[in-house]
């Protein structure tokens, strides 16, 4: 029957059908294994990266970074701390931090200066004074804050500036692996060491400190984050069992401290009383901002070898850890840096925390936590959208800093990467992975850690510059905009160093030279800045929130007392505006609780605003 023969499919012999099935399954398999290859090719196809070219970068991205380190007279080289000889076999990873940068106008001349820490005993810290003619001069020696890496006292790890005595000049707090120090600024003409009379402790292995006025009494308090246990003297070990007791669940780090400013030049340790002695995580970075609009600054901690934490400030009386409830304290990673910013111009703060990603070995990914809803009245819930926004895969991250590099009104991200660059084409990861995968009894003892023998360890990694397109995606542009830096970068600060209204960058590199980038921004992009001075609030105005209401949205920034990794950027708050010609109004929320509204402000200049007393 021809008719049926046409309608019915011909009978396939069993053998032939088996072959057909085999082909289908094999095709499915081939499609599956080609997916990553296809994704890479698609990324390459959509990327429009080009070699550094100022004209092209200005046209396409609105800014270009020029390395001006030498030409402005900066020749600082960081040297790492030399610790107890029982740790020398792993010295580069033990002494992998200490290069830091903080920006300050220490003499109130209206120009941004910056302070760099060194770490090896005998090596000096540097205070680069802005000479106002595009050059800088190291004045640390004459100001009395250079020679601070001293056996018995410790190695500098970082600094942070704040006017703790409200006399109008920024004072210096220096944290070490060793004794923390406070230096009072004597009218911009020198610094006096006031550590003993301030009542600071003898020894903390600190890698972060921030100023904040936690109880809103008008005086800056001091938070210090402990990394190694405070009983460990890294320069004279009593035991080699001082390494983390777990790679992701460590419980033997240093305590965190809060020193309350008594208003008379002394500080009182209130850490236990306010609830900050609940855990012994390995804190590497901290930032404080009012993330729940309670009026009080909350503290966010990035912890190495464990989960991150959010300490919500309850009425300036105590802090409670809401890391888990808020969503960011569950999956343990290696938190290295905390930066806070309104990443989508929604008038709320997001939190960026860097971690470690090494292809094929450890893929933690960085976290961009954005607020989604309230868990309760004062606990916001956050969701990690780093992957969606394209800022997830860094490498061995340190400072991750929000900064509007092209003044277009969207904050971008500068992320420092790279751990230990030593002999090229060598790698310590195999040995590292063996030990950190081991049990507590193995990992905790430095003697069990294989020697590094000059091997590179996640070194020669390039810093990332992620440009925010304002529509929910970031694009990596470092190579194209002149920011292709592959040193072991740690700390990053921004400041308008040359008075152009753009944010220049200072990048401190571990055991390597510092780098200064002058930022050339598309001239059509407008901006506005605010230099705040507290009256009822602390005079530095640290903790103040500035809300800029524009035609289409509102966005916020805050006056930081230190953030990211061991860094502090310029005190004045700066907003890029793109091609907007005006702003609607500015709302200032001072730490004291005072709210000030200002209309009709000129663009492209800094406005000095003093806290209203009424």
């Amino acid at each position: 029957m021809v008719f049926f023969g046409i309608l019915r499919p011909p009978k396939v012999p069993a053998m032939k059908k088996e072959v057909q099935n085999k082909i289908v399954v094999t095709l499915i398999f081939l499609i599956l294994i080609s997916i990553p290859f296809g994704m890479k090719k698609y990324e390459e196809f959509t990327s429009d990266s080009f070699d550094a070219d100022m004209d092209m970068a200005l046209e396409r991205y609105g800014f270009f970074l020029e390395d001006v380190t030498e030409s402005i007279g900066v020749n600082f080289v960081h040297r790492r701390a030399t610790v107890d000889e029982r740790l020398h076999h792993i010295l580069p990873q033990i002494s992998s931090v200490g290069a830091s940068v903080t920006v300050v106008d220490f003499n109130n001349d209206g120009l941004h200066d910056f302070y760099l820490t060194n770490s090896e005993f005998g090596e000096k810290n540097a205070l680069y004074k802005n000479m106002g003619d595009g050059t800088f001069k190291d004045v640390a020696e004459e100001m009395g804050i250079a020679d601070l890496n001293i056996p018995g006292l410790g190695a500098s790890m970082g600094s942070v500036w704040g006017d703790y005595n409200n006399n109008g000049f920024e004072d210096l707090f220096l944290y070490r692996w060793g004794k923390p120090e406070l230096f009072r600024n004597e009218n911009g003409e020198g610094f006096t060491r006031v550590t003993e009379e301030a009542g600071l402790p003898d020894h903390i292995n600190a890698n972060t400190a921030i100023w904040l006025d936690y109880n809103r009494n008008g005086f800056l308090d001091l938070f210090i984050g402990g990394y190694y246990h405070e009983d460990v003297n890294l320069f004279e070990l009593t035991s080699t069992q001082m390494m983390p007791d777990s790679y992701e669940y460590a419980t033997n780090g240093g305590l965190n401290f809060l020193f309350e400013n008594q208003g008379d030049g002394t500080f009182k340790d209130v850490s236990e009383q306010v609830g900050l002695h609940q855990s012994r995580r390995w804190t590497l970075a901290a930032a404080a901002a009012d993330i729940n609009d309670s009026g009080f600054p909350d503290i966010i901690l990035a912890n190495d070898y464990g989960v991150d934490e959010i300490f919500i400030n309850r009425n300036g009386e105590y802090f409670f850890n809401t890391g888990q409830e808020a969503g960011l304290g569950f999956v343990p990673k290696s938190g290295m840096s905390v930066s806070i910013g309104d990443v989508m111009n929604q008038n709320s703060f997001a939190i960026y925390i860097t971690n470690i990603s090494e292809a094929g070995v450890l893929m933690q990914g960085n976290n961009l936590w954005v607020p989604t809803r309230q868990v309760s009245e004062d606990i916001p819930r956050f969701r990690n959208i780093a992957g969606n926004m394209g800022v997830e895969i860094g490498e061995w991250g340190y400072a991750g800093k929000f900064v509007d590099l092209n003044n277009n009104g969207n904050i971008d991200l500068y992320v420092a990467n790279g751990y230990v660059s030593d002999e090229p084409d060598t790698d310590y990861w195999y040995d590292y992975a063996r030990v950190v995968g081991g049990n507590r009894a193995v990992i905790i003892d430095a003697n069990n850690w294989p020697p590094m023998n000059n091997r590179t360890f996640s070194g020669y990694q390039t810093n990332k510059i992620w440009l925010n397109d304002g529509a929910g995606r970031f694009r990596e542009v470092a190579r194209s905009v002149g920011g292709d830096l592959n040193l072991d970068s740690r700390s990053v600060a921004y400041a308008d160093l040359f008075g152009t209204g753009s944010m220049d960058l200072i990048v401190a590199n571990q055991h390597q030279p510092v780098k200064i980038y002058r930022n050339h921004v598309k001239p059509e992009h407008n901006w506005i800045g605010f230099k705040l001075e507290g009256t009822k609030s602390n005079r530095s105005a640290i903790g103040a929130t500035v809300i800029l209401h524009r035609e289409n949205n509102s966005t916020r920034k805050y006056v930081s007392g230190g953030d990211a990794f061991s860094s502090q950027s310029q005190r004045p708050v700066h907003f890029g505006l793109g091609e907007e010609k005006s702003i609607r109004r500015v709302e200032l929320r001072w730490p004291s609780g005072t709210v000030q509204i200002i209309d009709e402000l000129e663009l492209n200049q800094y406005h000095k605003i003093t806290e209203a007393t009424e």
Partner: protein
Amino acid sequence: MTTLQLSERFKTFKVPPGLIGPLLITAVVVAAHFSFGILDGWQKFAAALGVAVITESVLHKIVTGKWRNLSSAYISGNSAGILVRSPMIWPFALCAAISIASKYVFRFRGTHIWNPTNFGIVVMLLIASDSMAVLSIQWGSNMWAMLVIWIVGFLVISKVKLFHVCAVYMISFFAFAWIRSLYTGGIFLAEVAPITGPMYQLFVLFMITDPKTTVSTKNGRMFVAFLIALVEMFFRFGEAVYAPFYALFIVGPIALIIDKLWQERKDKQLTGTSDIEKIRT
């Protein structure tokens, strides 16, 4: 029902052998996650598990025209969900899919020759190492969790009469760790450290003991376990972080193919002998 009857029932209760693997891995996942948050997130784990089950169902239906028991896919999905480490979801799903698909593509004499998860992990490390890594940290910071998992795991493995595989592998691992430390001048504890982590627990309890991809005789299985540890040693000399996976990836299928051929030859000889006997009679 009386208490006595209940007690008798409890004594005679036996978990069906096919459920032992799924139950053990479920216990490990649940305990590890609620104790230490070992999973990267439930969505990623669910992606691995869901894709494994779907892939198994679809491919089996295509190949045989029938639906099949999904306990094997369940174990593979769990293993991929625990072992893959990535901030993205797709590597979890892709690893699970590749693991299952490998069973239908690479076959010899009617059976698959790679442990599916081992295959998936190694292929993912080759094609997507910039997007994923493999679990290489430990369960929390104390020894107890590790010991409990080892003990429970060994008890269960003993039930299915495969403890000898684990024992030979572990003894060989320690011996080769000692040899490596002598050869490299390294610290013995650092050489031994990885076996105290969860990656090895999953490797020893679920991969090298996979009944489908182990050889047929007890002596053969012990020899293969020894060979895996031996090949692993050479990968470790080459500083391969995931040395055990690569070792099993190479040794496993070769051993299985040789075993199948040897079995066939033996069967043929037996058949030949019996034919001759038939003729004589």
